[in-house]
């Protein structure tokens, strides 16, 4: 067979011409490809022309996903909120976030010491059922539990989350508001209000005075474990600033002398029943 032939020459002419033709490569990071409107590679939920999500929360995708990558929550036809997904998977992210929403330092909830805390499950169930499991009553439920235990144990919160079918993160976030304690109190708890109006009215002077009296800083407990001092931004209600709270009683407006008097009185009357109402 004769090698130098017309076929080879034609091919070489084609490549020679293409050497001088503009190239078709798209230089990627600088030039992006045009994405068509119907592109299905985007990770977002689609809206219908009325502006609502087309997703009907039928959970089919979450159920069929072989790697369980989908987590979702929605309302069923009864109006109950249901969720699909294992909260435990997301614990590493959820718990610190919930702590942050609660105003505490972010750390994982998985404190092994807390997992063995004993709670009384029937009590918690009773409280929840007493309010018919309505989500609006969550704060009242928390208050009842805190009255019983002095703080909100994690296991109780999980039981509430399961029983009411509310996202754990939402429960935990709600527990961070409204003055609920997530950690057991040691001794009496003196809370000095930290909100803007209380500060303007002199709350920092009150705080300093109490700190001097007790000999500890905010966030700490006295060495004998009798008093814990902390600051929260939600103690006062504006018109009674500056306010302090001792255990469950709120006092305000107080000045330094009154605050010291109140705290001293509480320490002296250790173990006595709490009087009702606040003094103005």
């Amino acid at each position, binding site marked *: *067979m*004769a*090698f130098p032939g017309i076929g080879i020459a*034609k*091919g070489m002419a*084609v490549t020679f011409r293409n050497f001088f033709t503009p190239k*078709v490569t798209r230089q990627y990071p600088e030039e992006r490809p045009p994405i068509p409107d*119907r*592109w299905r*590679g985007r990770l977002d939920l689609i809206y219908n022309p009325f502006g609502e999500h087309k997703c009907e929360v039928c959970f089919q995708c979450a159920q069929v996903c072989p790697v369980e990558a989908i987590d979702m929550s929605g309302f069923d036809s009864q109006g109950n909120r249901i969720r699909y997904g294992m909260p435990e998977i997301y614990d590493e992210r959820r718990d610190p976030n919930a702590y942050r929403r609660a105003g505490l330092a972010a750390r994982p909830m998985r404190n092994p010491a807390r997992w063995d805390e004993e709670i009384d499950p029937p009590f918690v169930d009773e409280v929840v059922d007493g309010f018919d499991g309505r989500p609006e009553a969550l704060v009242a439920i928390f208050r009842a539990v805190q009255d019983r235990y002095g703080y909100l144990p994690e296991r109780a919160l999980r039981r509430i989350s399961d029983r009411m079918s509310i996202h754990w993160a939402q429960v935990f976030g709600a527990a961070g508001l409204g003055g609920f304690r997530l950690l057991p109190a040691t001794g009496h708890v003196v809370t000095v209000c930290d909100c803007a109006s209380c500060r303007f009215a002199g709350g920092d002077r009150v705080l300093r005075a109490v700190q001097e009296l007790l000999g500890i800083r905010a966030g700490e407990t006295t060495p004998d474990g009798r008093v814990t001092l902390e600051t929260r931004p939600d103690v006062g209600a504006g018109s009674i600033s500056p306010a302090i709270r001792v255990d469950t009683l709120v006092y305000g407006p107080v000045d330094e002398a009154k605050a010291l008097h109140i705290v001293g009185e509480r320490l002296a009357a250790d173990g006595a029943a709490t009087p009702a109402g606040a003094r103005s």
Partner: protein
Amino acid sequence: MTKIDPEIRIPDPIELDRLEEERLRTAAGLLPVHAEGGEYAGFDTVGIPDRPPQTEREREVYTLEEGEMLVNMGPQHPSTHGVMRLVVKVRGEIVVDVDPVLGYLHRGIEKLCENATYTTVLTYVDPMDYLSTMHNEHAPAIAFEKLYGIKAPPRAEYIRALVVELNRVFSHGLMMGFLALDIGGLTPILYSFINRDEVVDMLSAISGQRMLFNFFRVGGVNFDTNDEFLSRLGTWRSHVLDNLDMNERMITQNEIFRGRTVNMGRLSGADAISLGVTGPNLRASGVAFDVRKAHPYSIYHELEFDVITQEGGDSYARYIQRIAEIKQSIHLIDQIIDRMPHGPVQAQVPGIIRPKPGRAYGAVESPRGLYSVYAISDGGPNPYRFRMRDPSFISLQAIPKLMPGRLVADTMAVMASFDPVMGGVDK
């Protein structure tokens, strides 16, 4: 103080493993792993299974005569069209026998489809023969529509035919490139990919995806055409024949290419029919069988086209056949665009269809041959049995018949001319 006896030797753990393995193998009746003795022992026996042959064919392939050697064109290979293993028995450079070992890409699609609703099945079949996705979806759509007893609206059928022909164009274009690549030319494949990129951009404008389109639904197609699709279609149509011509000019008359493909892998028409080879491979051997004409489906009875055949049945004929089919598909696309009616693109079907119990068969002409689906329904939301017949699998069975007597270098060239896609072979 412990006395250490210097006479006792603690055996090497690797040595212990080896002894254990020998013991177990002897107990199981298998041949020993390390056959000692002989100058070339261990060299030639690599690749032969270590159990007695279980079929006649296996005995035929794995018995080595004097001077023969087994060469493994293994699953990791730059040009076996996917993961396939070819055990080639060679004497020097001449091939004596070929044994394809398949199944490296098996994903259990048929079984998966038994646990999926009918609409989900259409997404599972996409990655089977990944270069002809639309055909993969067309056949099940036909079968399911027969089961459910509905017909797709005419506009849907026309859109289906349009995208199917577009898919055929780029699949055949890629075959040209792959054949040239396996023979050694580095540039035609890139020209084929330029063409494919344009078509794929077009199809992504209509279906939202670039490769696994998921465009067909039971009862129609998912989306209607939009402006972007039509404008890209027009642009593409205006220069596709020039691109094709540029690619062809590099390959078709090239003496080296012709020397490697003319008279190679000659498959006669009778042999092709008896092996079950279909599609362009069959038509290149002279048999005029095209599913679109023989068992018309969709709207092909309304379109004008002829069945093209070539004489010869060698690799070159298969290559020329595919080029002719590209031109035929472009002609079909022109007719479809002219005749497309208005109307809805999807029939009203519920989200989860539950056809009545029954069986249905749907066959289409895919770029590799006759691709068909046989579905059995038991009245529930999932098919009871979903069986696919893939043309590449059948075409590969022709290789052991064609190769003996040829050189090793021809193995790849002949295989590339059959254009198998391993996704379809292994399902």
